[in-house]
């Protein structure tokens, strides 16, 4: 398998970084969120089987811009993270307003036991 690159960025640089990646012709593979030591978001991209990961650490208080203006199909990932983890992602098109999943608990993945 090809190399996996991991790049850490600050949440403020998110859109500019992703803009660069999009211009390089990468495909969005996944957005993953991990809830340990703050919300850790990993955006994974693929080009010719090479995996590029962009990582940023945020919390549930800070607002994070949506990348759905650059990658329209990111809306499902972002809605999912917003709903399950409670990360405040703004400007998702379309925004499901926490109604994507039918769950009785609010942000079930966001709480640490």
């Amino acid at each position, binding site marked *: 398998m090809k190399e996996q690159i991991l790049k850490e960025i600050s949440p403020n640089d998110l859109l500019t970084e992703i803009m660069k990646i999009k211009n390089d012709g990468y*495909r969005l*593979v996944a957005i993953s969120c991990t809830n340990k030591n703050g919300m850790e978001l990993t955006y994974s991209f693929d080009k010719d089987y090479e995996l590029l990961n962009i990582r940023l650490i945020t919390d549930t208080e800070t607002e994070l811009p949506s990348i759905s203006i650059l990658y329209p199909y990111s809306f*499902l990932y972002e809605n999912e993270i917003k709903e399950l983890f409670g990360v405040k992602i703004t400007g998702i098109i379309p925004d499901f307003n926490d109604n994507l*999943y039918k769950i009785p608990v609010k942000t*079930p993945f966001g709480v640490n036991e």
Partner: protein
Amino acid sequence: MGNRTIVPFGPQHPVLPEPIHLDLVLEDETVVEAIPRIGYIHRGLEKLVEKRDYQQYCYVAERICGICSFMHGMGYCMSIERIMDVEVPERGEFLRTIWAELSRLHSHLLWLGLLADAFGFESLFMQSWKLREQVLDIFEETTGGRVIFSVCDIGGVRKDISSETLMKIRTVLTEMEKELKETTSVFINDTTVKLRTKGVGVLTKQMAFDLGAVGPMARASGIEMDMRTQGYSAYGKLDFKPITNDGGDCYARTRVRIKEMFQSIDLIRQCIDKIPGGDINVKVKGTPNGEQFIRLEQPRGEVVYYTKANGTKFLDRVRVRTPTFANLPALLETLKNCSLADVPILILTIDPCISCTER
């Protein structure tokens, strides 16, 4: 502008094997927009990793979905193996490949049956599932389960297949290939099938890329993308080429999946010829620490496994990005401007697996 109506589609619908809800905005008979609503079978399996230790989670991972069961288990095990630097014995890798390809075969046969059912060709549906039954019997004989195998383990596989059984599988597959040719020729040549699938839901190459489609959906639009070419497991030692088609419509997607079935049979044959002797698993000691991304090719497309471990026996996070999740945006796009009667077929051609999507 015609009359606008909203038709709720699903979660209970004859064409859907699993619940998904779509709000279809119609203008007369044409779909203008489709809004998905999922979450009827969200079980929170990713969160369960904090309660089950990393070895128990093997069994949870393969229960994410019934049809891609084996590859879910395999993807999870591979990610832990990669973190812990475990080298799986070669025979184990080959056995995994055999089961993975058999899974693809049974998944595609299931899908063909459902497709035939969706356009009302009942006898063809029965025929496809009759063939699938033989694959399920192989599963039961070799692993003990018809759908959930429980054979994949961190460090290899649990059960071996004897050489007599391998020969038997070979004969069964040769017989099946003949019948498969007969059945699939109906899908390819029959006029009524063509009428329902040709030119329906066209996804151009550019669109497929822009919408992030994966698996047969992307390959039917001419994108050559197959994670198996990266040579995980035993795929590096096998000879194959990704199957693509430039059509981009339902017919092209059917053809791609049909060709993939024959390819799977061929790959299994190659595996049976090349399988070496020796151990099938290695003992794994200690606890994982680190993180890893693993990508595999499931019957429905690329699956991403992200595993993060912290040095204890409980993992921090397992994240599964399943192929249907990536194909949903493409489905929504193809639904635009199609007629209401084509909606069931279009939903089926992405081969939706909602259990995977919601986990």
